[in-house]
């Protein structure tokens, strides 16, 4: 019943179905949404590894051995899958949210999304070049 208003009708019992915990398993779109949100966890773990890697550089040349185990490569491969899924979904949706006007005309969302992916490509190439270039 609405608070603060005189009841217009007698209180009829309504039925309130509960949401249940499995709502995200009911539809493919919901499931992939949860996967998208979950990508935060593997990415966080990988970045924490990276922080450890930086810290280890302080231990001197003798003690320094960068991670190279199979387990680590598998972990990275899994994280990469999640990272790619995060990037693709996040940058695609950025096209929905960003609305800009150039000379009074709205820029198409496809162009905005393309620019986001372009930024990703350029950044990856530059950073990749630095990481590999300094490795020689």
């Amino acid at each position, binding site marked *: 019943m*609405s608070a603060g208003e005189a009841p217009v009708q007698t209180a009829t019992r*309504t*039925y*309130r179905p509960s949401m249940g915990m499995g709502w995200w398993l009911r539809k493919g779109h919901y499931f992939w*949404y949860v996967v998208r*949100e979950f990508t935060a966890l593997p990415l966080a773990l990988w970045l924490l590894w990276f922080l450890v890697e930086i810290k280890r550089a302080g231990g001197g040349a003798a003690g320094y051995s960068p991670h190279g185990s199979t387990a680590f490569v598998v972990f990275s491969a899994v994280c990469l899958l999640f990272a790619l899924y995060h990037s693709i979904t996040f940058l695609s949706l950025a096209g*929905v*949210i*960003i*609305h800009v006007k150039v000379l009074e005309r709205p820029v198409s969302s496809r162009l905005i999304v393309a620019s986001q992916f372009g930024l990703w490509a350029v950044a990856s190439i530059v950073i990749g070049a630095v990481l590999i270039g300094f490795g020689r």
Partner: protein
Amino acid sequence: MAEKRVIIKATRFDPDRDEAPRVQSYDIPFADESMVVLDALNYIKAHVDGSLSYRWSCRMGICGSCGMMVNGTPKLTCNAFLRDYWPRPIVVEPLRNFPVIRDLVIDMDDFMHKLKSIQPWIIRKQELPLGAGEHRQTTAQVDEYRQFSQCINCMLCYAACPVYGLNNEFLGPAATALARRYNLDSRDEGLKLRLPVIASSEGIWECSFVGECSVVCPKGVDPAKAIQQTKLDTTMRFVLPYGNRE
């Protein structure tokens, strides 16, 4: 040739008699390829079981009354063609995330309240005097908000939204889209009045961009887009001292 038939499994709930909703199966003729789920319900009510209760009106997808769950998806039953489901049985349930009053009828008070809270009308600091004539808008100005003005208040988006399902305090897709419709309208000067509601702790920030609301919207309103753009615009208002006062 044998007559084509279809099975409709409709939720029944009599608050005076039932503890919980139950399913009742109806086997009816599928006479016409243009039949929609609403036609099936009307056939059932007219010829099979007059006690079945449900809302409907225009039967042409503009009034927003006949929203129900059809095989687990929120749909306008006047827009759900039997031929797309036949020969499988069609499960018709009341719109999810709302209290059920009876059978397929839900309590929409919460939505009505939320709609009113965003003041879905033109707000002016000063009304134009009558002699000044009508508010004039260019096509470009109408294009700014046109998409969000297509909302028919059918509440399918609320049924699709898991955030609303988990938290009934959430303002929700349609209310936010309509708030944006008015905030973007060049005739309107009420953004500051709507801001406390839209940007409250149960407003736009609770949306996690699942996006299902926009998938089910029968009028292409794209409420998910409205909410995300509102998040960005609201943030820019507070971050930039002079800029983007949309």
